[in-house]
């Protein structure tokens, strides 16, 4: 330990001794002054502090909001259409709970202050009042009905079927990173089985090469999405449970080994647009793993780039199918339509165009 650390410890011990001595002394004083008088004095102080806590607390909450509001996502429009619904729901809930919070806290601390012990007053014997109790059963019930109705209305919209024109992308999590797979020109993700996984042979996702649909599937290192075009993520995990967390899109879905999950949404702003909106040069859409997955959990990051259709087409045409990577000497025994790797990637380029028409 350094000298400063020793110093801090010594100071703390001294502070404690002072508090203890004061506390002990106050007990002796109360014996001298009379218990009753001491009680009355302490009661007044504590009652007054109730009021102070209420006023200072509410002011501090306001100040805290001023400091931190801009650091949240509350002020920034959601980057997905689903997120807009979630934001609306958030504001409705914030308004209702905010009112309840302020009112109940004021009543609580105000009553605590106002009805502090006083010799002249007697407590009011008031064991129950059925009307009042009915009132505050009914009012919360109505408020919650409103919240449940809005909530479920949005919930069904968000979790409903993805539109037919949605682009499909597979996202696979493992300790500690993300893999992406695009279906390629046929628009179909090929079959896979976990027992076929063999990273050394260029098959990290366990694709079944006997399935022709796999031959044009792409396996890029970044997730690119097209602005204003719905996307459906098919989410898998290879080892433990992970979670695709998309803070700016306000969405989240677990990646569960053995049980693929799905989530769809429509990105609203390109990455470039978000840079302008946030005023942050370095802005990037990040995928955060939101389910504890081991010691590298905090570093399990993915990157999403939202771009225009043209930019996307250009990018995807430069990607090479995983099949080609796995079979550098050209396709082995398998199916008919296997072209040499080079022309395969050329096909992938042409393949992006028909998709653009959607």
């Amino acid at each position, binding site marked *: 330990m350094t000298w400063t*650390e020793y110093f801090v410890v010594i100071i703390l011990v001294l502070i404690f001794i002072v508090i203890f001595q004061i506390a002990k002394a106050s007990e002796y004083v109360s014996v001298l002054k009379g218990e009753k008088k001491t009680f009355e004095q302490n009661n007044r102080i504590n009652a007054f502090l109730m009021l102070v806590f209420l006023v200072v607390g509410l002011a501090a909450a306001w100040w805290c909001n001023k400091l931190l509001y801009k650091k949240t996502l509350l002020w920034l429009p959601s980057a997905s259409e689903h997120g807009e619904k*979630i934001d609306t729901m958030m504001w409705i809930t914030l308004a209702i709970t905010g009112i309840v919070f302020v009112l109940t806290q004021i009543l609580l601390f105000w009553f605590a202050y106002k*009805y502090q012990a006083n010799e002249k007053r007697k407590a009011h014997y008031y064991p129950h009042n059925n009307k009042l109790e009915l009132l505050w059963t009914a009012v919360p019930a109505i408020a919650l009905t409103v919240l449940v109705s809005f909530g479920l209305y949005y919930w069904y919209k968000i979790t409903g079927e993805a539109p037919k024109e949605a682009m499909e992308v597979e996202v696979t999590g493992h300790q500690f990173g993300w893999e992406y797979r695009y279906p390629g020109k046929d628009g179909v993700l090929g079959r896979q089985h976990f027992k076929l996984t063999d990273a050394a042979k260029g098959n990290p996702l366990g694709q079944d090469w006997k399935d022709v649909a796999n031959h044009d599937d792409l396996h890029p290192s970044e997730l690119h999405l097209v602005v204003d075009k719905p996307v459906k993520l098919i989410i898998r995990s290879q080892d433990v449970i992970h979670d695709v967390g998309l803070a700016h899109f306000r969405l989240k879905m677990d990646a*569960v080994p053995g049980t693929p999950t799905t989530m769809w949404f429509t990105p609203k702003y390109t990455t470039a647009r978000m840079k302008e909106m946030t005023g942050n040069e370095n802005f990037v859409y*990040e995928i955060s793993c939101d389910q504890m997955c081991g010691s590298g959990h905090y570093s399990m990051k993915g990157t999403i780039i939202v771009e225009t259709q043209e930019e996307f087409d250009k990018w995807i045409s430069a990607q090479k199918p995983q099949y080609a990577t796995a079979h550098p000497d050209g396709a082995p025994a398998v199916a008919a339509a296997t072209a040499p790797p080079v022309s395969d990637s050329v096909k992938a380029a042409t393949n992006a165009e028909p998709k653009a028409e959607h």
Partner: protein
Amino acid sequence: MSNEIAVQHGVIPHEVHEHHDGHHHHETFITKYVFSQDHKMIAKQFLITGIIWAIVGGLMSVLFRIQLGYPEATLPWLEDIFGHWAKDGKIQPEFYYALGTMHGTILVFFVLTAGLSGTFANLLIPYQVGARDMASPFMNMLSYWFFVLASIIIMASLFVQTGPASGGWTVYPPLSALGDASQGSKIGMDLWLISMAMFVVSQLLGGLNYVSTILNMRTKGMTMTRLPLTIWAILFTAILGILSFPVLFSGFILLLFDRHLGTSFYLSDIVLGGNILPNEGGSPILYQHLFWFLGHPEVYIIILPTMGLVSEVMSINARKPIFGYMAMIASMFAIALLAFLVWAHHMFVTGLNPFLGSVFVLLTLLIAVPSAIKVFNWITTLWRGNIRFTPGMLFCVGFVSMFISGGLTGIFLGNSTLDLHLHDTYFVIAHFHIVMGVSAFMGMFAGIYHWFPKMYGRYMNNTMGYIHFWVTMVCAYVIFWPMHYEGFAGMPRRYYDYSGWESFKHFVELNRVISFAAILSFLVQLMFVFNFFYSIFKGRKVTTQNPWGANTLEWTTPIRPGHGNWPGEIPEVHRWAYDYGKDGKDFIPQTEPVGKDESTH
């Protein structure tokens, strides 16, 4: 019912006789302080064990808050103490996750379940229903010693080479099932599971005893509707535990099978670090269902007893009956019932069928209704009272304030639409720490300050009590209020370091403030612990039998009661526990017969 009471009444002289026998035999140190079967001593044992665990668990949170508040700092003294866990004076990720996991396990189970229910159920049930001891004092003793066994095993796991469990207190498989997935999933995880199995046994032994004592051993005249709310709360708590802990137990046993016997209950389609595992057909989601079937009632197992304690202490110190006694019981019943029907709200984003999710949204938000009733009833209890701010009463007010704050944020998280954004962010941490961490502690402190004179025949120091309350109250809000904002930024929980994230790295200063408040709050709790132990030996002596002017039966026992509680016959009860300020009288104890011209309510 009347039959039962008659029979029981008949038993009393016999018990008194036994009690006298006990004196002839002279209790040894072992039978009095170690393997005691006296409910009062067992309560103290639970409380002190709970306090020790709270210090350990709290210290863990201080350590990981150091990492979060000062991620850049190197503190060589950490390496002096923790060796390779804090290599080069920096807390390592595996250590950080182990700390978080054990902090959660210890605080949720060992402190706020065993330490809380164990203390107050044991202390108050026989005292307040008017019984000489628990239905089965021997089972009661076993309950405590199984808890000790669980404690020893989990404490041992802190010292094994690969460290304790580190996959979060919920220990979701496959992470917890596969030793190769994480250091903490090796032997530490086995010890965790065995310890928790012992813990469940302890809880069941205790719970069955609580329920049978409350139902069968009430004194003459103590009908169910004359019971203090503390006892009602403990009854519901015990029933929740009895029905849900076995499910958790089964979930843990299946996890042990998956770990060691090659079964595939929770495992399927796994490629771990390049190795293809043979398991097929299992579902990790099954574990989550089994876990949360206890896990959700568990939060009510924690909060219900404190609701009872607060209702009682608040009524006594407001010198006014608790408002809406029957509504309080009904709302606790509703909470206990709904507790079993909401577990999947922890699983909205697991790929759960959205329709099923919507049912759980409805049932979850329904819980807000009985919770709101309770809050309004507490506030109305203060209204036109004559409030004495004892330290216990201060903590009651703190409890209600925290319960409101944390309860309202539950309305966000229970709504699946908002959960999509807020799930597993700091918003969740803020929510459950306020509503079941801080609130429960406030309720527990209220109980400790209030019943300390009954436990030890001495008072705790008031001045330290006031300081304890106000600093705790301020720190709790400073720690957890700003975390909601981190949650609104989507900042994930259980991250060791945020500096690599463009989306979350701007909260460094805030994290430092939070860490500072957390450390200060921990120090103040140490002051409370000092006050507690100092007052056992040196506190101001209690000189009157009923120092708070309370109605319930425990204050009719001698200041330092022996085994058997009442030296003579057990008193008879003639009224409910809340006649404060009635007909101009400050208080009317339960033992006082109803007068002829007394008003009815």
